[in-house]
């Protein structure tokens, strides 16, 4: 069972990242769950989701001790760094997070997600850059499954952005950290 937290500001696309992971897991025949934080969040406020991908039936979809975290902003690093399991994967967006993780028992991947996304022409795909970096470190689902999930998870009006999203995913996977 792999338990993942994805966290950032509202508007950074963290819920979509989680849905892509869950959808890809489902395509690969696994049990999956996705659960959003649904407090009084709004654009600019903090936002996170829990994703569980498992070979067995999933109990609670709420992740309290993640195997992996994808962190898109500083408040999320402060909140979730202490909760990761020993040996867990911590991917963080080093463009926006202005400190290094303190823990030494984690596999830490710093990815300048916004900077790389800007190079591709849109900071809005920073989430896909970070997801790409995560997929290289974790292998919980294949990049091919994520690619297949895009057209199901993104609403039809965003389908013209799928090529850009794929580019961003590849950029994140290729990044040398």
């Amino acid at each position, binding site marked *: 069972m792999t338990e993942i937290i994805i966290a950032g500001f509202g508007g950074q696309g963290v819920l979509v990242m989680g849905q892509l992971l869950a959808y890809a897991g489902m395509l690969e025949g696994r049990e999956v769950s*996705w*659960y959003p934080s649904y*407090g009084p969040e709004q654009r600019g406020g903090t936002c996170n989701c829990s994703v569980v991908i498992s070979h067995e039936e999933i109990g609670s979809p709420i992740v309290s001790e993640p195997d992996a975290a994808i962190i898109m902003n500083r408040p999320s690093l402060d909140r979730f760094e202490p909760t990761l399991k020993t040996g867990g994967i911590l991917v963080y967006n080093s463009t926006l997070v202005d400190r290094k993780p303190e823990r030494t028992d984690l596999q830490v991947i710093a990815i300048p997600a916004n900077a790389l996304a800007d190079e591709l022409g849109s900071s809005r795909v920073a989430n896909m850059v970070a997801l790409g970096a995560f997929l290289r470190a974790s292998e919980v689902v294949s990049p091919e499954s994520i690619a297949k999930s895009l057209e199901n998870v993104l609403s039809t009006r965003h389908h013209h952005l799928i090529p850009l999203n794929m580019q961003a995913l590849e950029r994140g996977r290729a990044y040398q950290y």
Partner: protein
Amino acid sequence: MAKVLMKGNEALAEAAIRAGCRAFYGYPITPQNEVPNYMARHLPERGGVYLQAESEVAAINMVYGAAGAGVRVMTSSSSPGLSLKMEGISYIAAAELPCVIVNVMRCGPGLGGIHPSQGDYFQAVKGGGHGDYRLLVLAPGSVQEMADLTFEAFDLADKWRNPVMILADGLLGQMMEPVEFGDKEPQVVEKPWATTGARGRKPNIINTLDIVPESLEKRNYALAEKYGRMGEAETRWQEYKTADADLIVTAYGTSARVARSAVDMARKEGLRVGLIRPISLWPFPQAPFALLADGLRQFLVVEMSMGQMVEDVRLAVNGRGSVHFYNRLGGMVPTPRDVLAEIRKVLGGGGGQ
């Protein structure tokens, strides 16, 4: 049909449309908003009526009207909204009209908060509205069951001419899981009692006023007799590893998901623990308790309430085993580890009450 990834609220709404629901009346409240959202988008294009009422009170009375006209109809709300609907629900039960009522529970009392809770068990199962009536209450435990039980709820409502309540919570409504809809067809039920226009026949009258005690008493006994038959026919539950268990954890909905993980963790430690998950909350599944409560086994009820279903478990166990209780409140969801700690505590020797 392939599986799709959906929120519980959306899966429930899609299942309702597939079950032939052709009228939806509601008023917005978190955490059930995806239900009216989905209905607003999809019900009109599939031949139905979606209407956002001016209040919950208006919505439930629109349900009363549509149900009387023989239409498959649903309303959905969350806890404080359900309180507002209670008068109408009592009328619909008294008039013996079929409809489906959804409660995606949030935490209370009062305005409370928007996070998951199971604090409306009493309201759903013991009455809630005035007078003597029963709802058939079904408690889904997954997104798949949000769909399956809602689909079935429409058939059950028609079968018994009675409101059926789906008692879910914010977690089940908001979470996404794979769901499969299959290709089941809804049952088509003749409704000779419906107010469909009296051309060529005597008018049908739907009315709950009956001021002659001798006459009302007859109606009450008839309802009681129906509830008795419903109680015998519609009880459902799921058992998990109960056969050799020293301790039976009992929980429904979200709590049952957590409890099941805790049971697996306990089994790995060599503790003999099982789970009874009531799926129908009314009628409450007495049978598995009657069978398993042998005076040796203990019971642990896990709820996200101050202790509501635990009363029904005590009645069912009927003194033949100690019944322990563990809860979280205020929108907090217990973790499997919390429940495991409680299991260890109970099996470690502490006597029940």
